[in-house]
């Protein structure tokens, strides 16, 4: 079985940042693995500008940010394995890796889980009616639009005004779809003010506050939704062929869910908690990487240290 000192799962912004920091702090035996075909994680599909104000002082796109982070790993000995999925992690510090070239076990001393988060789906909401096609999470719609250059549909309603909802509303409209409205159950949009002012406000797309979707229609493809105004109880039937949901992100720790909290494990980025800004994910992950490096250094047996310690008490 192969071994490494530090294994980092996920090469999104957090994983790359943790890897660079750990390398800089002296870890020399470091593996960074990702199931995707290239590093970058969610950044790869964020083609809008708006990243990196704090770290770079200028606003760049997601892919630009990702290549910048990747350049930080060049000329290091970090071993980056893409198209390699971690299937499981066990309590005796082994990870099972799968790729087209084979299956292998990798032992490690410490693990940083930087696997990002997953989107809550419509299924988790108390929505009645049929279960038609044409319902997308915002992440799916974003990937479809930016990486596959396709529209999810033509007449689109967006449920949830988090950053992603506002970004996607503008993005879908710009790509030629008709975005009917953004519905939000709270009395204020959910995302950052700057995303509201940059994306939603100029788009002219109505923001329906204290409003949610309660029912879906359509036996094949979606044909409409029922909107409910939560204060008045008024219901409106909105014909549409697509619903994009932005109803929450959940840190994805499935890989270690049965393991408790062993001292060799730490979390970075959205896997730790959901970060609104990539800069904060990167900053947090850098310190997680550094801490992992010092924990590894502390656990190293330095044969010279014993006589030295002994000397202290003579």
């Amino acid at each position, binding site marked *: 079985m192969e071994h490494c000192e530090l294994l980092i799962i996920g090469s999104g912004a957090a994983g790359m940042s943790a890897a660079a920091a750990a390398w800089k702090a002296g870890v020399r035996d470091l593996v960074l693995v990702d*199931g995707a075909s290239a590093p970058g994680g969610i950044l790869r599909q964020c083609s809008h500008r708006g990243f990196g104000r704090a770290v770079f002082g200028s606003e760049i796109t997601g892919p630009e940010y990702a290549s910048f982070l990747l350049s930080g790993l060049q000329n290091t000995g970090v071993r980056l394995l893409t*198209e390699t*999925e971690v*299937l499981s992690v066990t309590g005796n510090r082994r990870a*099972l890796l*799968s*790729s*087209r*070239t*084979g*299956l292998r*076990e990798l032992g490690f001393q410490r693990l940083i889980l930087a696997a990002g988060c*997953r*989107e809550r*789906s*419509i*299924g*988790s909401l*108390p*929505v*009645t*009616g*049929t*279960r*038609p*096609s*044409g319902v997308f*999470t915002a*992440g*799916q719609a974003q*990937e*479809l*639009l930016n990486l*596959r*250059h*396709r*529209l*999810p*549909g*033509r007449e689109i309603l967006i449920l949830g005004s988090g950053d992603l909802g506002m970004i996607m509303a503008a993005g879908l409209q710009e*790509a*030629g*779809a008709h975005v009917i409205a953004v519905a939000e159950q709270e009395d204020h949009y959910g995302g950052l003010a700057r995303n509201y002012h940059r994306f939603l406000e100029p788009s002219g797309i109505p923001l329906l506050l204290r409003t949610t979707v*309660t029912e879906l229609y359509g*036996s*094949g*493809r979606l044909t409409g939704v029922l909107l409910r105004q939560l204060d008045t109880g008024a219901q409106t039937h909105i014909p549409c*062929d*697509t619903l994009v949901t932005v109803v929450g992100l959940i840190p994805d720790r*499935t890989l270690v*869910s049965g393991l408790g909290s062993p001292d060799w494990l730490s979390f970075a980025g959205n896997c730790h908690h959901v970060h609104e800004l990539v800069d904060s994910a990167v900053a947090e992950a850098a310190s997680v990487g550094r801490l992992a490096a010092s924990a590894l250094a502390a656990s190293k047996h330095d044969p010279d240290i014993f006589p030295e310690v002994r000397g202290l008490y003579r």
Partner: protein
Amino acid sequence: MERFDVAVIGGGLLGCFAARNLCRWDASVLLLEAREDVCTGISRANSAIIYPGYDHKPGTLKASMTVRGNEAFGRLCEELDVPFSRCGSLMLSYGPKADAVLRLKYDRGLQSAVPGLSLVSGREAEAMEPCLTPGVSSALYAPSAGTVNPWELCIAACENALQNGAQLSLNTSVLSIRPEQDGYRLITTQGDFFARAIVNCAGMQADQVQRLIFPCDVSIHPTSGDYLILDRDAGLHPSHIIQVEPEDGGKGLNAVPTVEGSLLLGPSERENGIDWSVSEAGLSFVRRFAGQVFPGFSEEHIIRSFAALRPNPQRPDGSSIGTFVIEHPAPGFRSLIGVKTPGLTCADQLGIYLAGETAADLRLSPNPDFFPGRSGIPRMKRLGFDARCKAVRQNPDFGELLCRCEGITRGEVLEAIHRGAVTLDGLKHRLGAGMGPCQGARCRQKLIPILAEALGISEEAVTQSGGDSLVYGGADGTL
């Protein structure tokens, strides 16, 4: 016109198992299904319970078939290479009236020879299932109860029938049936077929299909019910199927720890439905009930809600029928009408019965070459390390993971398509893709290009479940 000994109408659980068992006889068998895939009707949504058999009146066909079906289920699933969990069931009572119902069911169970049945005290039940709300007054424990994935089972039966020479015609709706010399002419959306005998398993339409040629006294009155699914990480994991017998005699609740590791809750009962819509009243019934039974129930862990359709059989005067209705209006024509619970448990038994009767009508001899076994799609997540290494070495597609929640590789997806999946639901039914915590948010867009390429269609033409359920914006979806 193609000629067959027997035509089976309907590719649900009952039709697929009828076809499988007809292959035990020396007969040419045609299975006709209106939709694009099998297991898309009633069979696609049920409680997934393999019942022990104490619910029915001793001595009835339903009681004896359920006990027999249950007993044979382990072997059936081995033959068909489908995971089956004989987890046992606990039916709970929280008061004296329900206690009495459990005693009645216990007595019935003893008379029907349900194995291992016992009445246990509330305290014993709570010790067996620490996740229950305290205050159970008694429980009926049936160790023989189990659960299976109905999709996998139905598809496995169909595959086994095809391996044994049956022919499947999809997208084929039977429009009318005419008598002919020594048999019947079936006029369908895909042309005419001749069959010496017909087995009508048309589910919700079974009464109407019989009326295409014969009268039918029994009518199907559809109602629907709602279910909820909790994800694997819900921390709510009864080790038995939990059923509640409510004190007020109303609708109970099932909680089924599925073979996939999720928890299935439901169904509600409602009167309104002939469509697959989920109702608000139904959902809140299931949520409220689940909260009462399981203190650890949290709505946070709901990953899906869906509706099921019940085909309730009725007499002309509107009264409901409790037994299995097997109509036999003429030689060589049989209909199963309004088979609801426990149709899954009894699917193979009903198939054996129908095949035997039809074989007698046609004087068929047994088929010495019938092969009961079928191998499932090789599932990487179920293999040990060495076997999995070997699989990837032989075919790199088995190393490429596509669905993170359910651990599905490209190799498995391609195999499922090869075996007949033509929609996203087809992949879900064969592999579980889209059933996990993310409900397809991460894998769906990886599956679409694979389906499109393998089927030789554009990505815009890929559907969720056939018809107009297009996933992308349609033919003009490309930017």
